[in-house]
């Protein structure tokens, strides 16, 4: 059977289905207020749902399966976008810990939850406790790797990761190999590892869809737009309306100069799942298109989210710091980024702090932090753009231009507002 033709047919059929979904969505969108725009329902994987219900019933009857239920809740949170499942996972684990001494599985899920809540030190501590109780268990290792990476302890993270890969070259292992390679600027290697992770597969469709969305992002960074599109579409076939893949398609649209298409996609995504990350992307795309008042309106969502976070005692989000630096109060951005750095001293926090300092009128300090963000050799277009602007501002023209060029050759055009600014800086 000709695999290529078969593939074409599969794609065609997927398209037919997508057309169906989109036309339905459009009917709704055209007929109704913006709040109801959006395609088909964002629904969790039926298997995850069923698993949650089964485990709920079993725990209700006294079976000691809280750890599994917590894991299912965490997966459900990823799939539904409903943070209430984090609270449920937390409650279930507390229940288990109240019952008796912690077992490794419960500690592992508690570590995953802590990582999900950005408490990476706690995640590391819990993962290590799980390891101490069950030295042969592999489940804590991926979480330990995540925590170490975010804490900026890359050598330790890589050694742990190597052990994991040697013992069990699974989806979880290869996905992290990919991330570490990406941090080092090795996009080809990152893509290779992601493909291995995808072919290793997993029990939950959403996991693979997530990796395909990441793959699309990496291909976008390498400028292979067709491959990026295929990866995003594969994710969307696996999980219809999957938010990370819709976001990917929006970035791809922006990258190809289709700003209207990008705005349309971002708008639908924000209407459905108003995460700050998506609201910022929407606002910046609108700014790039010159729609200033719409942008102002959409960006206003971000400080509101920030206020709600602050009220809950959370005061350290990297994305919010970058938002404040770009569109709000850069000095507040510096404060947020410093808190983020205290919590997770990795390259992401370094980049945010550097950019906030640069925007707050301290480009010399900003450049130092930006260099720290690039110390592994990342080619992340946003990191490079931030470093480039800081360097130009302190008259280190060569360094600045080099970084801006790297940013532009690695997909900064997916963020048209920054791409325009980078080109202006280069032309000066």
């Amino acid at each position: 059977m000709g695999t290529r033709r078969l593939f074409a047919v599969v794609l065609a059929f997927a398209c037919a289905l997508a057309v169906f979904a989109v036309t339905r969505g459009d009917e709704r969108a055209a007929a109704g207020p913006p709040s109801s725009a959006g395609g088909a329902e964002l629904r969790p994987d039926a298997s995850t749902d069923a698993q949650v219900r089964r485990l709920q019933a079993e725990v209700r009857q006294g079976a000691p399966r809280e750890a599994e239920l917590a894991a299912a809740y965490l997966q459900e949170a990823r799939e539904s976008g409903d943070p209430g499942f984090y609270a449920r996972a937390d409650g279930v684990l507390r229940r288990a810990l109240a019952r008796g001494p912690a077992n490794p599985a419960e500690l592992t899920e508690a570590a995953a939850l802590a990582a999900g809540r950005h408490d990476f030190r706690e995640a590391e501590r819990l993962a290590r406790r799980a390891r101490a109780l069950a030295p042969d268990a592999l489940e804590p290792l991926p979480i330990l790797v995540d925590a170490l990476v975010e804490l900026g302890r890359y050598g330790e993270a890589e050694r742990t990761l190597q052990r994991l890969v040697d013992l069990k070259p699974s989806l979880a292992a290869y996905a992290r190999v990919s991330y570490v390679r990406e941090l080092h600027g090795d996009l080809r290697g990152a893509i290779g590892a992601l493909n291995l992770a995808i072919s290793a597969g997993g029990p939950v469709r959403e996991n693979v869809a997530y990796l395909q969305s990441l793959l699309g992002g990496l291909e976008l960074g390498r400028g292979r737009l067709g491959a990026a599109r295929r990866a995003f579409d594969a994710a969307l076939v696996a999980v219809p309306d999957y938010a990370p893949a819709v976001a990917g398609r929006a970035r791809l649209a922006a990258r190809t100069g289709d700003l209207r298409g990008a705005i349309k996609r971002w708008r639908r995504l924000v209407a459905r799942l108003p995460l700050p990350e998506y609201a910022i992307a929407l606002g910046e795309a609108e700014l790039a298109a010159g729609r200033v008042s719409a942008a102002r309106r959409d960006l206003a969502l971000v400080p509101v989210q920030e206020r709600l976070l602050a009220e809950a005692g959370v005061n350290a989000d990297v994305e919010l710091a970058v938002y404040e630096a770009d569109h709000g109060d850069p000095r507040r951005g510096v404060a947020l980024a410093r808190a983020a750095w205290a919590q997770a001293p990795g390259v992401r926090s370094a980049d945010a702090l550097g950019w906030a300092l640069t925007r707050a009128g301290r480009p010399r300090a900003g450049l130092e932090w930006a260099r720290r963000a690039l110390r592994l050799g990342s080619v992340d277009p946003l990191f490079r753009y931030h470093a480039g602007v800081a360097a130009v501002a302190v008259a280190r023209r060569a360094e600045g231009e080099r970084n801006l060029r790297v940013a532009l050759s690695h997909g900064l055009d997916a963020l048209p507002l920054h791409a325009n600014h980078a080109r202006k800086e280069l032309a000066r």
Partner: protein
Amino acid sequence: MIRVLVAILLALAVLPATASAHPLGNFSVNHLTRVSVSSDRVDVRYVLDEAEIPTFQQRGVADAELLRRKRDEVARGLVLSVDGRRVALRPTGAGSLKHPPGQGGLETTRVELPLIATVDAPRSVTLRDGTFPGRVGWTAIVAVPGRGTAVRSSAPTSDPTDALRRYPDDVLDSPSELRTATLDVRPGAGTVEATGAMRPAATGERSAEDGLTAVFSDAADGKGVLLLLLVTAFAWGALHALSPGHGKAMVAAYLVGTRGTPRHAVALGATVTVTHTAGVFALGGVALLLSQYVLPEQLYPWLNLASGALVLLVGAAVLRSRFTATRAHAHAQHHHQNHAHEHAHSHGGATHSHAVPERFSWRGLVAMGAAAGLIPCPSALVVLLGAIAQGQIALGMLLIVAFSAGLAATLTLLGLAVVFAGRALGRLPVPRRLALALPTVSALLIVGVGVVLTVQAVPQVA
């Protein structure tokens, strides 16, 4: 570009959930529909509770306009069907809109809309809440007693949220996700009873019936999308049959080899439809069951191998019957000089069954059709699984049937063409040797195709 693998929804992760008035976080859109069926009317009360973020997203809109938008959303999304027909829900009064205070000095939005439908001695009532698709939130339907009826409801009869004013925080319960309810109505004294031990959380909306309802209510609404989709599926099936594989060669060769009739060609097509549909359904079912352990893609190679082996077997059987037939002919030749020409015409209509018993068998034909239909069409499976993922199971099944019918149509047409071409060939003064050899060659061709399929499948399995 920025990512933590464990925690995909980063900001989401840190959003306060327990501290919030809304268990589903600050961007939930929660709605509850209370329905009561009386002998002459259906009363519906739609309650909407939007958390801080969605409220903020629609700031600047005057309350009157906001209320109008919500009414429109409900008019479009809330579908009431009585005895299989959609019935219009009219608002009684303007409804109310309030902004209770929320967290962080922000407001929330609370809307209540009373609706009514006039009916006459309803038997079966279905309510489908399609409002605010894709938004996270508590979605529930509650059945309450009406006048002069005894109702059995698939939806619960109690509401743990006090009309969305507070939410249960049991960590062993998932938020309610109920968007469809079916109520069986008989004359009675105003009672309502929930069928089954359904907790609000346990009643998902993924039942096949719901999908069917959705598809048919869309179709009933005059949305041509369904028809278009079915036609597209049929056309794709027909085109798909033209791509390599799919046993065109073997079907044609089989019909030539057995000197089939148009009836056989049609039967072959029908068999392909049935086996292909059944095959995809079975594979879909198995894939769903096994999806915990095996990826569907891992099943294809095995199916490829199975169908390859089946084709090989059928080819061998035809070849064997050819040899026995040729020998029989060699004996018959002395007595009936023209026999070889005769049978090309003789077995149309009712006399077919024993005209060439040693060459044609219905069993062989069905096996052939099964082999052609069994060859997995991943596209068809993708459609089915995709539809299941979207909760549109019925739609997926319909699409597969249309797709298979298209597939079969092409194969049948091809078969008919081969049969008629064969007849025309039979009338030509073809050398007897060639006429005898042709079916043998076809049988060899089937064997060849079987070998190729099997050989291709083996490395995939390994």
